[in-house]
């Protein structure tokens, strides 16, 4: 994976000192909270319900053992012994003190990490496929392109005060494991007819209160114009994105209001101009970055395993993904134990995962947008030993992509923006479906829970989505069906009137009953819904 050189390190170190100075000015009172807020947000520091919250960037979801260990150590030293992995492949600490923050950033900088641009109206941490560099179906590893864009977007002088936050995703396979078309800009690395690699751009996707699927805006940008084209996309947005209403300020509204074609026309005009400005990094830069992501030294080994232990076999079936080398798999470490808090991991668990990565996965880990952790390169012959250790640590739940593997935002238990709690719902649903054995029968079923309209829990993209709302001071939950964040991207539709907490859990049970009764062949919940439509589900819920 990528290693900082002295220039990268110097940027991050400079940022720590800049923040230390900003925090000092705030604590002395020379910066007001209004002035300080955008500055602290650009370093990932929020003021949440109970304390400050610090969001640490994990660029394109990739980290090494030393970094994961440092994250665990920070959880113990400065927080209350745990952290929360997010749908942006980042990590959040919930109990941070402003007076400690610069020291935490300094500890992060020692292991080439930071919290730069993890919030604020700027280009956020760039996300990618969690199986990048390991998946059997990718064209190339997308991460060198993501790293090139990470550097370009870090402290970009023109794009630090955008109308609103800006999220970029880079993938390189037809299968979309990163919700690419639900980003402000989605980039897919593709090959043209001449066999050359290039970037296909999508723009104007997103969730929030007005969910939209990004339309394609250019089917092929030559790789030596990648940054230039992105720069053009951003400049048009910076100049013309709405600033009169924060709920209409994302690029999706600009693309929608201008129309895709007019946005494209403006971008192309700016692109032509930018090409003359020479903003593209030298070609050699991408070539410098690529070797950092070269394959580790894979060895041939056994391609089959002893499946005599049914618990182990189930975990292998559920939680491993086919690798490009047939003696390896990518193994998913579930952070969704039954009744647990989705995405939370203790300092001890982080250090354990770090050690396992060192031992079994060439020192590498990935964070998934589904709030789990991946060991990308595990020898098939090591799987049983790995699973045994995970089981012992409570990290062996065999539930990837099942209803128990739900996404849930922190909700009203932690978040100042939330209207309702998300975590208790997640806990109760996983307990109920696990106890009844229904999880197994349902197969792939993506449940996503958000505690407010901002949709951090991706409810619009859930096969089943739940949105928490405030109904006259009481928590209330809207149910929606039919969303997908994958390559068959779709937005979920609301079933009808909302439910209480107990009511929505019953409702999830009912809609899964409809599926089990109606499904044909190998259909997933989503497939059945798409075939039979909303009516039978509505009938079961409200009829």
């Amino acid at each position, binding site marked *: 994976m990528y290693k900082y*050189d002295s*220039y*990268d390190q*110097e*940027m991050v170190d*400079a940022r720590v000192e*800049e923040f230390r*100075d*900003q925090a000092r*000015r705030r604590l002395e009172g*020379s910066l007001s909270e209004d*002035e300080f807020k*955008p*500055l602290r947000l650009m370093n990932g520091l929020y003021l949440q319900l109970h304390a400050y919250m610090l969001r640490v960037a994990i660029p394109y979801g990739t980290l090494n053992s030393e970094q994961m260990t440092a994250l665990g150590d920070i959880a113990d030293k400065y927080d209350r012994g745990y952290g929360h992995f997010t749908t942006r492949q980042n990590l959040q600490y919930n109990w941070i003190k402003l007076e400690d923050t610069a020291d935490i950033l300094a500890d992060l900088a020692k292991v080439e990490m930071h919290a730069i641009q993890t919030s604020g*109206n700027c280009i956020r941490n760039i996300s990618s496929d969690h199986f990048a560099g390991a998946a059997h179906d990718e064209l190339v590893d997308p991460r060198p392109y993501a790293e090139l864009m990470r*550097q*370009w977007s*870090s*402290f*970009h*002088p*023109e*794009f*630090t*005060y*955008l109308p609103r936050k800006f999220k970029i995703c880079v993938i390189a396979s037809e299968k979309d494991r990163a919700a690419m078309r639900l980003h402000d800009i989605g980039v897919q690395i593709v090959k043209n007819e001449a066999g050359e690699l290039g970037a296909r751009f999508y723009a104007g996707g997103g969730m929030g209160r007005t969910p939209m699927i990004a339309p394609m805006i250019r089917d092929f940008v030559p790789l030596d114009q990648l940054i230039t084209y992105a720069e053009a996309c951003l*400049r048009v947005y*910076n*100049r013309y994105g709405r*600033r009169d209403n924060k709920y209409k300020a994302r690029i999706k509204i600009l693309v929608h209001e201008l129309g895709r074609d007019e946005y494209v026309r403006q971008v192309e005009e700016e692109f032509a*101009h930018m090409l003359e*400005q*020479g*903003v*593209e*990094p*030298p070609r*050699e*830069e991408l070539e*410098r970055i690529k070797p950092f992501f070269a394959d580790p030294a894979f060895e041939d080994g056994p391609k089959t395993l002893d499946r005599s232990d049914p618990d182990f076999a189930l975990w292998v079936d559920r939680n491993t993904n086919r690798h490009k080398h047939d003696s390896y798999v990518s193994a998913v470490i579930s952070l969704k134990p039954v009744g647990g808090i989705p995405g939370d991991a203790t300092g001890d668990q982080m250090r354990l995962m770090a050690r396992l990565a060192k031992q079994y996965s060439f020192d590498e880990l990935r964070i998934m947008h589904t709030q789990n952790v991946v060991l990308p390169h595990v020898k098939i012959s090591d799987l049983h030993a790995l699973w045994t250790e995970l089981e012992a640590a409570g990290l062996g739940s065999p539930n990837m992509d099942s209803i128990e593997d739900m996404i849930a935002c922190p909700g009203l238990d932690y978040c100042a923006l939330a209207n309702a709690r998300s975590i208790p719902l997640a806990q109760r649903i996983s307990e109920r479906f696990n106890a009844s054995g229904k999880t197994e029968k349902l197969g792939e079923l993506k449940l996503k829970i958000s505690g407010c309209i901002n949709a951090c829990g991706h409810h619009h993209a859930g096969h089943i989505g739940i949105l928490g709302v405030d109904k006259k001071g009481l928590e209330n939950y809207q149910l929606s069906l039919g969303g997908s964040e994958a390559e068959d991207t779709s937005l979920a539709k609301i079933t009808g009137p909302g439910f209480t907490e107990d009511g929505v859990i019953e409702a999830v049970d009912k809609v899964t009953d409809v599926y089990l009764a109606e499904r044909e062949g190998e259909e997933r919940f989503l497939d059945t819904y798409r075939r039979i439509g909303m009516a039978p589900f509505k009938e079961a819920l409200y009829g």
Partner: protein
Amino acid sequence: MDNALGTSPDDVQFRFRDDEVADHAAVTVDACCDQTNATAVRIEPGDDARVLLPFLDRLALVEINFPSFGDGRGYSSARILREAGFTGELRAVGDVGVDQLSHMRRCGFDAFAPDKPLNEEDAARAFAMWENVYQRAVDGRRTIPQIRHGDRA
């Protein structure tokens, strides 16, 4: 002049130019396009900086107003003017704080007239903030990728 506006030379706290401070009343972008003798203009966030491109030769001063520091349109306006070859004074005015200075410099501003005068020490540190930079902008600095590859770009 009816539509005179803008800052006076006395309001300029930081300046990175050796020429005489332009002491002209600025006019709006609309007025600038109509008047053939205007030599100073003030750009508001909603103005299209590109309408000024035909008049750059006669402009000694362009003020770009930041009514609120969080509105970043002025950064694009500044860069667009420099990309088009504007060499006169580019003055950031309004809600300009210490923490915006380094990026503004990179986007081509060479004079600063903040509403609230800034602490000189904090500002000096801010201007010197980045020893090196990742992106090509309009300040002529070699970027980190260029340095890494022997400045061949």
